[in-house]
């Protein structure tokens, strides 16, 4: 095995030239992932990227690891097979809002509730890009696209809330153009044992440009990104605004000035899911101040471990499987020559 210290960005970069549209947010995410993988100290041969269909699906080809570009929506299921068969592998799923939340919604929630040891990166651009611009399950109501010339009437999913509802043990949100935050969230996801779900707001400059400007633009973002830090009071907009407990147990945004410091919510990623869930619902979408960072991180047995433990117990109790004993056990009879 190669010396882990010698891993560089190049180690994880394949010879395939990325073919996304110029200006696509995917480039920034790819660069961040390639640059950050060496820090994990995991050899490329022990790393697997699995993707589905959509612009994000191409990601697999640009990583010089093992890779499986699957079919639409099924990446979490393929990855479940890989990670369960070989729990020692570092398995990443790259997916999009259509891939993960529409055609593959079932596999996503089941991978999360099983706590399969997967890092799931959901590139959310709120649009179908590869099929040239239809609304997606995260597009806002009223969205005008080729398939909704009079505006979409479908209510969008909030991916973070969905993942929390599926009992995910690690749930986070970050954004494509903030390399530092993106890398930090990915690092925490990588260190998590179990299913780690990361929603990445990703700009599609061709079919849905500017969807995240309120958060993505440097100046506006400074006002509207609510950065979640475990153990810290939730304040944003240069310390002027906070999240506090309002009437009826709801969380609300308020001015720090005039708020009792004890009423400001302190972020806790390990607590009950209700806080994370309420934070996820604080905004109606990225057109309002929105929480970013790790929402929740708790420990639970991974699927692969649980399955291997069961096999271990069965071997202890019944002994290592013996084919002859299996075939010849029970009611048999002999016929003499």
């Amino acid at each position: 095995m190669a010396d882990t210290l010698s891993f560089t960005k190049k180690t994880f970069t394949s010879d395939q030239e990325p073919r996304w549209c110029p200006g696509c947010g995917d480039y920034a995410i790819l660069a961040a992932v390639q640059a950050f993988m060496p820090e994990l100290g995991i050899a490329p041969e022990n790393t697997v990227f699995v993707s589905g269909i959509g612009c994000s699906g191409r990601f697999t080809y640009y990583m010089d690891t093992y890779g499986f570009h699957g079919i639409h929506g099924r990446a979490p299921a393929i990855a479940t097979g890989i990670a369960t068969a070989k729990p020692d592998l570092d398995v990443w799923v790259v997916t999009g809002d259509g891939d993960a939340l529409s055609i593959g919604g079932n596999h996503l929630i089941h991978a999360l509730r099983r706590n399969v040891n997967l890092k799931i990166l959901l590139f959310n651009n709120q649009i179908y890009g590869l099929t040239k611009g239809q609304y997606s399950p995260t597009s806002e109501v009223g969205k005008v696209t080729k398939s909704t010339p009079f505006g979409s009437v479908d209510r969008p999913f909030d991916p973070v809330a969905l993942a929390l509802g599926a009992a995910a043990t690690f749930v986070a949100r970050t954004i494509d153009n903030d390399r530092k935050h993106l890398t930090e969230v990915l690092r925490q996801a990588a260190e998590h044992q179990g299913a780690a779900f990361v929603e990445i707001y990703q700009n599609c400059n061709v079919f849905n440009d500017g969807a995240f400007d309120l958060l993505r633009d440097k100046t506006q973002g400074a006002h509207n990104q609510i950065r979640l830090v475990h153990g810290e009071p939730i304040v944003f907009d240069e310390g002027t605004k906070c999240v506090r407990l309002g009437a009826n147990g709801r969380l609300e945004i308020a001015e720090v000035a005039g708020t009792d410091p004890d009423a400001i919510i302190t972020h806790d990623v390990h607590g009950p899911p209700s806080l994370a869930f309420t934070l996820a619902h604080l905004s109606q979408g990225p057109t309002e101040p929105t929480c970013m960072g790790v929402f929740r991180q708790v420990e639970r047995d991974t699927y692969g471990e649980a399955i291997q433990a069961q096999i271990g117990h069965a071997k202890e109790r019944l002994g290592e499987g013996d084919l002859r004993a299996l075939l010849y056990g029970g009611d048999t009879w002999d016929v003499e020559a």
Partner: protein
Amino acid sequence: MSKTVEEREHVVVRFAGDSGDGMQLTGDRFTSATALLGNDLATLPDFPAEIRAPAGTVHGVSAFQIQFASTDVATPGDHADVLVAMNPAALKADLATVVKGGNLILNEDAFTSRNLEKAGYASDPRSSGELDGYQVYSVPMTSITVRAVEPVGVSKKEAERAKNMFALGLVSWMYGRPTEPTLEWLERKFGSKPEIHDANVAAFHAGYNFGETTELFAHQVLVKAAPAEQGTYRNIAGAQALAWGLIAASKTSGLPLFYASYPITPASDLLHELSRHKNFGVVTVQAEDEIAAANMALGAAFAGQLGVTGTSGPGLDLKAETIGLAVITELPMIVVDVQRAGPSTGLPTKTEQGDLLTAMFGRHGESPIPIVAASSPSDCFEVALDAVRVAVRYRTPVIVLSDSFLQNSSEPWLLPDPASLPAIDPAFAEANGEPFLPYARNADGARPWAIPGTPGLQHRIGGLEREDGTGAISYEPENHELMTHLRRAKVEGIASSLPPLDVDDPDGDAELLVLGWGSTAGTIRAAVQRARAGGTKIASAHLRWLNPMPSNAGDVVRRYPKVLIPEINEGQLAMLIRARFLVDARSFSRVQGRPLWADELDEAIEEALHG
């Protein structure tokens, strides 16, 4: 009173009752005792789709049929010699299965006006003349059972529940079956519940003694042991044989078995059986849906395990896209399809061979895939091994076709020596210093199986067309055509590793060839033997591999003036044979959710020859 003993070559017994009456268990126990006696046998469980349809109705009738003989048994029998009917509904549902003049053993206590009405009888068939020509034995099974069980002190309900053991005891006496296997089984089953155990034993003895002492039954029937090859035998059903075959393949290949499946009748028994054997390192996943199950198996195959998914017709439809992905990624994966009557939900518990063309063509694009079909319950073991051998050697998904009848039916199985099973070499790729070409091919046309964790062989595969050799994405027109041809040639090339199609034609001058596949093997064997005994010159052959077919398949079907293809579908193999070999093969088709009967095949043979 002394009773006479009549010797018979073969007998067909059918147990029928309400879903809750324990008829499958009764049949199963009778089968075990029969197997231990050394008879050849074949069984046919026949149950309704509903778990417990309204009691006493025809919809809720569950039946179990067994043919046993002192000679070779090919089928569970076209018609029953004896029907044990636990209520009027069972009589109503199954009278047509009894041979004219056959024996009807009726549970007299169940023939109340209420039950007759629920079964749809306007008048009591026992006195209406409807049963004229049958030998009717009316036995108050429930009340005798309750009286016999009384000393044990269980509730009346528990006592009545034991009436199936009374029926088993009675039929065991009628055919001279040993009682020990049943008593031992009751001990194992109810050892921890002494009262239930005692009640069942009392009911069983009561039934046996009833046959022996009452004057109702004048004689006992004896069926001697069938001559059989030397060795150790067990009785086995198809589902168990298939599961064990997969476990055996896992052992002989060293590939851990990864089975992902979604519950579906009748394939669920595979999931149940494999889940019991985790000490063989078997991973079983009950997936969230059929599509997930297929993708998990494919993911496991990519990771270097024996990835298997199992389903039945509707699930095969759902897995189609994933099987296509397995075709283009050229990974070994096994897809088991336990066929049932379709289309759509169809008849979920009834058998059919309706998925052959779906297996063959049920994917978009040119998507060739090897297909192998089991011909008997015990053959499921060998078929599983064959499928894995081909999948691993040729790096290809393989579809295994079984069916509802094979899964549930059972027969004696001459056990193989596990040490004699040939090894399967996964031949994983290893780095050799050269640039790795994931789509380079060996002499078999197979690509390397390079599994994650192997240094230096990192590569990317997927559903997009690959460039020959490098495996890079390629949209080149010529390359697509080349890859299409290479995938087809690889699958066709498997024929060179298959034994030739074996033709049963003693004199070599038959005028008619009967060609079959899958679970109809027994029926065809029986019908061909009968025709031959009647002086007809007739040949038969049975296809194990449907794709590719053995290299001599074309020569065989062209050699005979007439070809008859019996199938439980509307002529799917016949269509393939006609299209591929340009022969005027005639189809014999039945789609009634049951196995073919030998006597209807007799007629088809007669018509094919002289019609």
